[in-house]
């Protein structure tokens, strides 16, 4: 039986926070309905899904009003709702595919024979055709998400909840997961609620769009086309990716320029094991180049190798004289301090690269390593704080910033000593349309000031803004 969801004046406040994440929400979802839930960051969409999935415990905050699943508290009916989350890696619970898919059904106490039958059926339903003992951690992001979905389907939920299930995937992975969801819901008739920033992908699979405003106020509700027509402007202004309303940074691609770095029979990999043969490539100076390719092809490894953080497994990385500036050899042979001003790398997760306790110190790290005078450091940092829109947060701990702010800070600290070559790993990942625009503007400023920026990315909007593109394919890479 597909589930019925009903919220009556429902609200939730996370422990230790003053404002309510959601408040006064009135919403009804009929059995078998498929709903796309939209709203700006901070509108409590994820909170609502977590509550429906029964993963919000009483000790994690307080609630008011009522939220029911078929007339009962979600926590009283565990397993009626199944939730798929955003990050594929962190949803791999057990190392082997078959074991991971069985985890949920086992927790519900389903008899062993039945668990095995359900796992086979669920993996078939999401089209994951791999041996049961395949290592789940080695699957591509798209396949990991389909595995998480299979694990949820094996629980036979009456309500399927998806919290930005495709935000971290390459374009092929996005469609893979979307189609698996559509197929599975068609087959089971379960009620579906999806939260996603990227509307275009999901609009055709759902039959209703619900828009939440800040604090969970219901702003619009109805047929997808009609809601997007009426509320498109409102949503786009608040960071939702609405079809036809992309925050396009209009920009004519710049003509190719002299290379700042080139590769020769380069093989990249980790621990001396090659993962990718890179065809000889030249990266133009003062241009934005997109580095694209499917999940797991080796984009990150290539970016880290070009940035002098990993040794080439084979072949050579050849910096132009303008980049080497008197140094011999490739970036890998340079000292850490010599990288400053030459090459900077921005990692996929900003938290990995924070070194200090305040935003101000974070921006000053490179400048101080170069022994700039305190006055010079202060002047540059103040300028950056202004441009990054982080002035008010100058003394805050970087770890306490929001995702979008952390990302701007990590890019800003890479630009503090303007590098001739800036490598970025998925810089726009997980950004809403507003933070996206701020970030791309920052990048393009760096390019205008003479940095060559190379972004490993899945993001079609970012690729559209780039001056050129290096497309990697499995086992080889092609310059397009």
């Amino acid at each position, binding site marked *: 039986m597909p589930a019925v969801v009903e919220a009556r004046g429902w609200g939730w406040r996370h422990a230790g926070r003053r404002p309510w994440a959601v408040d006064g929400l009135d919403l009804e979802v009929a059995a078998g309905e498929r709903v796309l839930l939209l709203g700006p960051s901070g509108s409590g969409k994820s909170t609502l899904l*977590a509550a429906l*999935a*029964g*993963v919000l415990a009483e000790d994690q905050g307080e609630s008011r009003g009522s939220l029911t699943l078929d007339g009962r508290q979600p926590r009283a009916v*565990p*397993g009626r709702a*199944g*939730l*798929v*989350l955003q990050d594929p*890696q*962190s*949803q*791999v*619970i*057990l*190392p082997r595919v078959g*074991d991971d898919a*069985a*985890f*949920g*059904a*086992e*927790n*519900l*106490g*389903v*008899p*062993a024979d039945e*668990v095995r039958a359900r796992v086979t059926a669920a993996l078939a339903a999401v089209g994951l055709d791999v041996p049961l003992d395949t290592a789940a*951690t080695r699957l591509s992001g798209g396949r990991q998400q389909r595995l*998480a979905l299979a*694990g*949820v389907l094996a*629980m036979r939920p009456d309500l399927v909840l998806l919290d930005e299930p495709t935000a971290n995937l390459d374009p092929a992975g996005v469609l893979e997961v979307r189609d698996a969801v559509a197929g599975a819901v068609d087959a089971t008739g379960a009620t579906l609620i999806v939260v996603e920033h990227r509307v275009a992908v999901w609009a055709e699979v759902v039959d209703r769009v619900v828009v939440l405003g800040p604090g969970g106020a219901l702003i619009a509700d109805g047929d997808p086309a009609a809601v997007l027509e009426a509320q498109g402007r409102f949503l786009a202004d608040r960071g939702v990716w609405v079809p036809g309303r992309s925050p396009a940074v209009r920009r004519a691609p710049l003509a190719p320029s002299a290379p700042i770095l080139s590769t020769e029979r380069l093989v990249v990999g980790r621990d001396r094991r090659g993962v990718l043969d890179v065809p000889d490539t030249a990266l133009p100076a003062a241009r934005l180049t997109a580095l694209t390719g499917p999940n797991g092809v080796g984009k990150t490894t290539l970016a*880290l190798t070009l940035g002098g*953080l*990993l040794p080439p497994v084979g072949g050579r990385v050849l910096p132009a004289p303008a980049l080497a500036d008197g140094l011999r050899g490739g970036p890998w042979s340079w*000292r*850490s*301090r010599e*990288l*400053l001003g030459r*090459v*900077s*790398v921005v*990692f996929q*997760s900003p*938290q*990995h*690269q*924070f*070194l*200090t306790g305040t935003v101000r110190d974070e921006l000053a*790290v*490179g400048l101080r*390593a*170069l022994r700039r005078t305190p006055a010079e450091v202060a002047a540059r940092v103040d300028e950056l704080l202004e441009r990054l829109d982080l002035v008010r947060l100058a003394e805050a701990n970087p*770890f306490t910033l929001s995702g979008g702010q952390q990302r701007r800070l990590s890019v800003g*600290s890479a630009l503090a000593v303007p590098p001739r070559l800036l490598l970025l790993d998925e810089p726009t990942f997980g950004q809403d349309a507003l933070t996206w625009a701020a970030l791309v503007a920052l990048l393009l400023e760096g390019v205008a000031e003479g940095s060559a920026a190379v972004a490993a990315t899945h993001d079609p909007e970012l690729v559209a803004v780039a001056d050129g593109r290096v497309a990697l394919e499995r086992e080889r890479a092609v310059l397009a």
Partner: protein
Amino acid sequence: MTPLVDRINPLTAIGVALLVDVVLLASVDVVTAAVAVLAELLLAPLSGIRPARLARRAVPLLAAAAVAGVTISLYGRTAGVVHLRWWLVVVSDGSLQLALATALRILAIGLPAAVLLAGMDATRLADALGSRLHLPARFVLAGLAAVRLVEVFGEDWRTIALARRARGVGDTGRLRRLPGQVFALLVVALRRAGLLATAMEARGLGAAERRTWSRPSPFGRLDVLALAAGLLVVALAVGIGLATGSYRVVLT
């Protein structure tokens, strides 16, 4: 082909390792330990683990045995002929014998673990603990989650170290910046642990009164053989130790 040892029930593997270790921990003489090491080395190939891998697992053991052996030979209780005397260092027959016995004991106690436990699959262990010993599911699954997290933390630590080089501070001040690096790992780790907990709860963790353990955790002929091998090692070591009159028990 999975090594035979990976087809033993994890509980058997733990049991056999415990059996051998408890008996050998109780004895301190050279002969018992030497026979045990010899028997273990002869039986180890039956585990099906490739020799190169087994050697790698034994490296920390060999290092520990060597360190203990050298230290005791230099500082151990003096007895019999003295070979060398320099400040606090006295090398004598007595200290050499004790050193040899200690080094052999470390090997004798460590080898069963290196063969039987070092490569144990966490999921199979969890299945055995849950379905055979009927330990509480939450406890078993928490252990399993911890194993998964440790894997991820290693990767995080490497990334954090790379990021320091990228930021221009990788050349010097390693020690001074260590606390910052540890803090970064902690923050990332907490976030990861939270996400994993949510992912597990989203799949109904703790939902049913009785969780199903859908993978069988059988005991079979191999388990009997493993147990026999353990008993053989113990019997040979203690038997020959007693027969030669060299067997000595701790605390006597």
